[in-house]
C-alpha cells in the first residue's frame, strides 16, 4: 500500500526521489480521510516552495486541507490533469494523481521524513 521507496510527512504527503527531482503527492490515508476530492490548488511551475510550508490545497466536498511541501526547492511541473479531474486523487493517489515535481535545494531535508514503515505506524495502519 505505502511504497517503500517513498518518504512521508506528518501532514500526509509523500515524495519519491529521482536525481534532484522529487515527485510529491498525498497519501492513500489522506484521500480516504478527505473523502470525495473536488478541487486541487497547486503551485505554478517555477514557484519556490519551502519545507513544510503551505504550497497549495486540496478540497473534498466537506473540507479544505492544506498541502505542505516535504522539501524546499523549485516547482518544475504541476500535474495539470488534476484541475479537470480532481477525483483521480481518490483513485490513484500514489501514482497517476501525483501533485508536483520539485527540484529540491537541500537534499539533507529528506532525512527528516518518515519511511513507509514509520508512516504506517504513525497513522496506525
Amino acid at each position: 500500500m505505502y511504497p517503500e521507496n517513498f518518504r512521508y510527512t506528518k501532514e500526509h504527503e509523500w515524495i519519491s526521489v529521482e536525481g534532484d527531482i522529487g515527485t510529491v503527492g498525498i497519501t492513500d490515508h489522506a484521500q480516504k480521510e478527505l473523502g470525495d476530492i473536488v478541487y486541487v490548488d497547486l503551485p505554478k511551475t517555477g514557484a519556490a516552495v519551502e519545507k513544510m510550508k503551505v504550497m497549495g490545497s486540496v478540497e473534498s466536498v466537506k473540507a479544505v486541507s492544506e498541502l505542505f511541501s516535504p522539501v524546499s526547492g523549485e516547482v518544475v511541473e504541476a500535474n495539470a490533469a488534476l484541475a479537470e479531474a480532481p477525483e483521480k486523487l481518490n483513485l490513484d493517489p500514489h501514482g497517476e494523481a501525483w501533485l508536483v515535481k520539485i527540484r529540491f535545494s537541500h537534499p539533507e531535508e529528506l532525512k527528516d521524513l518518515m519511511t513507509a514503515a514509520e508512516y504506517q505506524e504513525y497513522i496506525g495502519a
Partner: protein
Amino acid sequence: MGARMVDFGGWDMPVQYSGILEEHHAVRRAVGMFDVSHMGEIEIRGPEALQLVNYAATNDASRLSIGQAQYSALLYEHGGFVDDILVHKVAPDHFFLCVNAANQEKDFEHLRSLNRWDCEVEFASPRYAQIAIQGPRAQETLAKLTSVDLAAIRYYWFADGEVCGAPARIARTGYTGEDGFELYVAPQHAPRIWDAALSAGEEFGIKPCGLGARNTLRLEAKMALYGHEIDATITPLEAGLAWIVKFDKGDFHGRAALDKQKATGVRRALAGFEMRGRGIARDGYEVLVEGALAGWVTSGGPAPSLNKNVGLCYLPLEAASAGRSIQVLVRNQPVEAVTVPTPFYKRAKA
C-alpha cells in the same frame, strides 16, 4: 457499516458511509436514509396548547389541521432566532415540535418561560429516534414496511400508524429538497426499522447517508441551518423567512422587534451565489462587493446535483438581488462569483 463518525453536540454522528457524492446522488435519483435521532422533540399539551404555540412560534398554528405540519421559528424578544422548528398538530390540545439537537434544551427552557397558559411542556427527545427516508423512491421503500396509505399523506402532513409493527409518526417532511418521510419512533425500535428499510430499499439502490450529504442536499434546496444562515443575531426577515412570520395572527414573542425592523427597513439579506472563478466558497469566508468587505458566507461548497460551487451569504440589501457580481475571499484571494436566484435545486413536480 464503514461509517466515518464525528462528535456532533455529544452525539456520535456519521459524516459519511460510502461517500458524500454517492449518498447525495442516491437521494436525488433514488432513495437515501439518514439516522437523525439527534434531533430534539418537545410536546405541548393542554386546552390552551395552541395559545402557547402561537405565542412562542412565528408561523400561524391556528391554520393547521390535525395531521398537518408547518415550518416555524422561535424568536428572542430582540427578533433573533432561538431555533427553527417543525410544528405538528396531533390534536386540538396537542402539538409535537421537532427542534434542532444543539438547541433542544434552550428551546425547552424558552417554551417553559413563555408558558403562561399552564400547558404541559414535555422534553420528549429521549422517547424518540428519528429516521429520514428521502428521495423519489422513498414512498415505495417505506410502503413495504407499513400499512399506512402513504400516497394519502401530502407534503407537510403526517399520519400516526405502524412501521415494522412499531408505533410511528410518519411525516412527509425532509431536509433534502426531495420527496420523502421522517419517521419518529421509540428508540428501541429504530435499529430494526433501519435494517428493514435498508432491505426494502435495496432494489432501488438505497444508501445510508451521513451528515455530509445531508448538508449538500439542504444547501442545494436553500434550507437554513442553525448556526449558519440563522442564529440569535439574525431575524427571519433578514434570512428570507418572512413567509414563516404571520403578522396577521396577533402578538407573538419577538414581534415588536420585527415590526420595528419592518418599519425602519431590513438592511441585509441572504443571497445565493455561484462561483465563476476557480475556488470553493466555504462557511465563514468573507464576501466583497466592488472591492469592499460586504458580507460573509453562511454555507458554501460543491452542489453535486448542479456540478457547480455555490453558497449562501449575507449582503447589504441593495447588493443581494440576483445577477450581481461579487467576490469571495478564498485564502485571501478574491474569486469571482455571481448572485443567483434560489433555491439552487428544485425537484421536478410529480
